[in-house]
C-alpha cells in the first residue's frame, strides 16, 4: 500500500476522468468537474478532444474554466454557436456525441443518477436540487456516460431517491428494454476509486483504486455489497504535468471571479 498523496479529491477525480478520454472524441460537457477533466485532457494527451456544451456551443477551446454553460470563455472561442433545440436534437440525439461527462448529487449501484430531489417526496422534498438540465438526454444518447462524484454516504447510494438520468433503472439489466441508443452512465469515478457497470447491465463494480486507497475503504464508503474485480490495481499518481494544468486552471478561476 502506498502513502495517500496530498491531492484534493476533485483533482483526483478530474485527472482519472481526463485519462479515460481519447483524442478526437466528441465530449458533451457540464460545468464544474466535467469541464475541469475535459480541459485537462485537451491540455495533456488529447489536444483534439471536441468539447460541446448544452448552451449550443459546438466545439470550443476555453482559455479558463467556464462558470456557466453560457460563459464567454466557451462562447467566444467556439467553432460555432447553435440554438439550444438544435444542440439537443441534431448534435446530441442525432448521434454525434461519444461521451457525456456528468456531475451529480447521487449515483446508485445501477448507475442511475439523481440531481432532482433528496429525501421526502417529489412534491415536498427534504432537499430540492436544481434538477435535470441536459443530463437525461446526454445519458440517453451519448455513446457512453461518465459520472464524476465525491464518494460519501449521501452521494453513493443503493438506490437514488429520484432517477434524473437513467442507468439500468430499478432492476439489473432494465436498460435494454428502454430503447435508448446510448450505454448510459457506465463509468463512475470518485475520489476513492473507479467503478464500471458489469457487462450484463448489473451493478457497478470496483475496477481500480485512487492512489493510496484500499478495497476496504471503498467497501466502507459503499452501502451495497460491492463486487470488486480480481486485483483492481491502483491508478498512476498524478503527474507533474497534470498538476501544473490544474493549478493553472485554478489560478484562472480565481482571476475570473
Amino acid at each position, binding site marked *: 500500500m502506498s502513502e495517500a498523496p496530498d491531492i484534493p479529491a476533485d483533482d483526483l477525480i478530474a485527472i482519472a476522468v481526463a485519462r479515460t478520454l481519447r483524442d478526437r472524441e466528441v465530449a458533451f460537457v457540464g*460545468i464544474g468537474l466535467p469541464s475541469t477533466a475535459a480541459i485537462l485532457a485537451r491540455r495533456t494527451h488529447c489536444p483534439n478532444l471536441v468539447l460541446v456544451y*448544452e*448552451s*449550443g*456551443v459546438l466545439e470550443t477551446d476555453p482559455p479558463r474554466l*467556464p*462558470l*456557466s*454553460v*453560457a*460563459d*464567454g470563455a466557451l*462562447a*467566444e472561442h467556439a467553432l*460555432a*454557436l447553435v*440554438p*439550444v*433545440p438544435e*444542440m*439537443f*436534437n441534431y448534435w*446530441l*440525439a442525432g448521434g454525434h456525441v461519444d461521451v457525456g461527462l456528468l456531475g451529480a448529487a447521487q449515483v446508485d449501484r445501477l448507475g442511475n443518477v439523481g440531481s*432532482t430531489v433528496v429525501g421526502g417526496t*417529489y412534491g*415536498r*422534498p*427534504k*432537499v*430540492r*436540487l*436544481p*434538477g*435535470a*438540465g*441536459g*443530463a*437525461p*438526454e446526454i445519458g*440517453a*444518447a451519448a455513446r457512453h456516460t461518465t459520472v464524476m462524484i465525491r464518494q460519501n454516504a449521501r452521494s453513493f447510494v443503493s438506490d437514488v431517491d*429520484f*432517477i*434524473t*438520468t*437513467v442507468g439500468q*433503472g430499478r432492476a439489473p439489466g*432494465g*436498460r435494454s428494454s*428502454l*430503447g*435508448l*441508443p446510448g450505454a448510459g452512465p457506465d463509468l463512475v469515478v470518485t475520489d476513492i476509486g473507479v467503478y464500471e457497470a458489469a457487462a450484463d447491465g448489473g451493478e457497478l463494480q470496483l475496477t481500480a483504486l485512487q492512489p493510496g486507497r484500499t478495497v476496504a475503504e471503498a467497501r466502507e464508503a459503499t452501502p451495497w455489497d460491492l463486487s470488486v474485480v480480481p486485483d483492481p490495481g491502483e491508478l498512476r499518481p498524478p503527474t507533474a504535468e497534470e498538476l501544473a494544468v490544474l493549478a493553472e486552471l485554478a489560478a484562472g478561476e480565481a482571476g*475570473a*471571479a
Partner: protein
Amino acid sequence: MAELVELSAAIEELVADGDSLALEGFSHLAPFAAGHELIRQGQTDLTLIRMVPDLIADQLIGTGRLKKLVYSWAGNPGVGSLHRFRDAVEHDWPRPLELEEHSHAGMANRFVAGASGLPFAVMRGYVGTDLVGPAEAGGTLAFVDCPFTGEKLAAVRAVEPDVAIVHAQRADREGNVQLWGIVGVQKEAVLAAKRSLVTVEEVVDELEPVPGAVVLPSWVVDRVAVAPGGAHPTYAQDYSRRDDAYFVAWDKIARDRDTFTTWIEENVMRGGEA
C-alpha cells in the same frame, strides 16, 4: 409591426395577473431589467416559463409573483442552489409554487412545437426516469408509437405563453431585432407566444449582419424597449461582461428571507437597476 415604447409602459400593457410568461435567455441575454419591472409593477399569479430559471426567477419567486414554474434547471450557475426557489418548494414561502418540470431537451422541443403551431413535439427520452410521473400527471408528457416504425417515443406538449420577453443586442427603428452569441430558445419563445416584448441594448439605424445572428422581423414582435445593461448580471455578447461576483453574492443575499426582502426593496422596488 413592433412599436418602440418605454419598458414600464410595455410591461403594463402586455402583462396581466395570471398570465404565462416566457422569459428566455440561456444564461446569456437574460431579461433582468424586464423582470425587475414586473416585480415593481406587481403583476401576480404568473406562470414563469424559463428553461434555466436563474436569479431572475429566484427574485420573482421570493417576491411572491409566481404561482407556477415551467422549467428544466433551477440553479445559480457556477454557484449552487437557488435559495428562494428551494424555500418555496420545501416550505411554501412566500407561497406554494407549482412545478412543471422537464429536461432541457424536453423544454427546447416544447418551444419548437409552440413556434411551429403544433400541439406537441416528439423525441427520444424521458423513458426510465422519474421525470415521467409528474410530467405525465401534469399533462405535458405522453408516450406515443411511431406510425412508421412502431418505436415508442416521448411526446412533449407545446408551450404557448401569453407573453414572451427576451433581451437582444439591438433593434432598428422599424423594430426588427437582432441577437447573437448564445441564442438559446429566444426565437422559439417569441414565435410561440401570443404577445412579445424585446428589450434591447440600443436602437440603430441599420442592422449590420453578424455571423450566426438570429433576426426577429418587426412583424413578429409587438413591443421593443430600450434597456441598456438589461441582461445584467448575465451579459450581452459584444456589449457587456457577465458579472460573476453578483452570482456569488446572490447566494448569501437569497439564503435569508429578510436579507432577500431588504435587497429587493433597496435594489428593485426603489427603481434603481441592480
